């Protein structure tokens, strides 16, 4: 296909978009709506991810050391712990610090606590955080296997259940987006099919005159891309406006989770929406054209 043909395609495309202005508006609106819903779910998934990560980063595994472990052995353990896969951060907590922490929690001074207990019952320990929630259990297991570690403890069933739930919410969001993608391609294809059907005789004439299939396709394809791009721009603007408004109104109410600000992740979503709009538009027009371009599939 030569370059000069493309300037013709653009003229053809813009003419056909203007001539079928109602169909054009309907297609743009459909694409915009689809992309907006996809965008909303992407933002929800983004927020859930952040929420999950916030929680994950707070889960700590406590590795209690055996009593009367020599100080050198205890401090040497940090290297072995760091070598375990999935370990993010390691902090040593001496038995004195542990007692002080406990005293703070009980709102007493360490001295009074010590005197009422007689002796410090708490062992030295390492506070270990994992890279992700999935790593927590295996890391704890490996910690317990280490020489010098008496026991490794972390969270409880509630935390486990929360992680499980978050995982399913994420899967659900992805599945929903996939479903919407398929649904919107079908809707756009149907929309464009109506336009193409009204031009069926034109397409047949183009073939008689010796136009190649791609020569016929390009103007439709470009028209689809333009509609997709417009739909994408509208959806991005809507999403941006709606989300900034949402943050303004609700971030003070939703105290238990901090909302994602409009950041780089958002620009990926916006970029994806525009790109996807263009793909959606062109895929829709190509799909609906193929019916008429198949060899020997037409009657006079």
């Amino acid at each position, binding site marked *: *296909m*030569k370059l*000069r*043909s493309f300037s*013709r395609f653009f003229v053809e495309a813009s*003419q056909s978009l203007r*001539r079928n202005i109602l169909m054009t508006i309907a297609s743009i609106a459909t694409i915009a709506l689809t992309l907006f819903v996809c965008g909303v779910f992407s933002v929800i998934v983004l927020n859930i991810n952040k929420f999950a990560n916030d929680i994950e980063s707070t889960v700590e595994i406590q590795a209690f050391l055996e009593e009367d472990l020599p100080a050198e052995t205890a401090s040497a353990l940090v290297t072995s712990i760091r070598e375990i896969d999935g370990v993010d951060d390691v902090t040593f907590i001496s038995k004195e610090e542990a007692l002080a922490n406990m005293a703070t929690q009980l709102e007493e001074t360490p001295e009074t606590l010590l005197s009422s207990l007689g002796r410090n019952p708490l062992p030295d320990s390492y506070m270990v955080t994992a890279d992700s929630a999935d790593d927590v259990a295996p890391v704890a297991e490996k910690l317990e296997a280490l020489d010098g570690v008496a026991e490794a403890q972390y969270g409880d069933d509630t935390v486990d259940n929360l992680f499980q739930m978050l995982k399913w919410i994420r899967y659900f969001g992805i599945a929903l987006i996939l479903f919407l993608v398929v649904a919107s391609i079908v809707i756009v294809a149907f929309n464009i099919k109506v336009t193409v059907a009204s031009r069926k*005789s*034109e397409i*047949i*004439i*183009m073939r*008689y*005159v*010796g*136009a*190649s299939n791609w*020569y016929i396709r390009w103007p439709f394809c470009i028209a689809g891309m333009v509609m997709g791009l417009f739909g994408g721009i509208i959806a991005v603007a809507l999403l941006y406006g709606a989300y900034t408004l949402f943050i303004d109104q609700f971030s003070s109410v939703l105290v238990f989770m901090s909302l994602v600000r409009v950041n780089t992740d958002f620009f990926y979503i916006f970029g994806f929406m525009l790109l996807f709009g263009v793909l959606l538009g062109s895929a829709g027009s190509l799909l609906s054209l193929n019916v008429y371009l198949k060899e*020997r599939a037409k009657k*006079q």
Partner: protein
Amino acid sequence: MKMISLKGVSKKYDNGQLALDHVSMEIEAGEFVFLCGASGAGKSTLIRLLFREEVATDGKIIVNGRNLRKIKRRELLRHRRSMGLVFQDYRLLPKKTVFANVAYAMEVTECKRKDIRKRVPEILEVVGLSDKAGSFPSELSGGEQQRVAIARALVNRPAILIADEPTGNLDPQNARELMEVLKRVNDKGTTVVMATHAQDIVDEMRKRVIMLHEGRIIYDEEGGGYHEIALV
């Protein structure tokens, strides 16, 4: 040089209808040939085979040196562009002007704009439509629309012009004018094949007549006339 050659060509449609039955013929370059026969005789089918819109069920078709059975996709496009097609119902693009309709046939071959600007007025002159270049098909008479279709068919200088009942929708006066155009085109060397059942035109032109009946050639004679089938 042979332009069109058919050997034992049969065409059976998917519904079992046998439209052509062992047809053989040869047409030389520069000939003017009428394809005649009653409705359903197989004229349009033969034209569809030549344009390779349909493939023959049996037999061998060679057009302009190309064996249509073995033709490849890319070559098929070239084959179609080497033929100009005209139909009874004109088949113009309704939203394009006369000029744009004719130019479109050049654009699809990715011609230079300069060449298009030069060639389209030339060919509109040939069919006598220079003053209608800016009109839309809906603003033209049937005869004028058909001449636009002929201009479009000829604009790429095809080796063969094929017309399927081009005068079918025209009154006698317009039909006669159209035949004048076809004759001029043929005089300049283009091979013309025209399917028709317009008896008076065939009789008047005294060109080669190939008569089809139920898919078979029953008559093929130089300078023949339509009326003579009655004698067969």
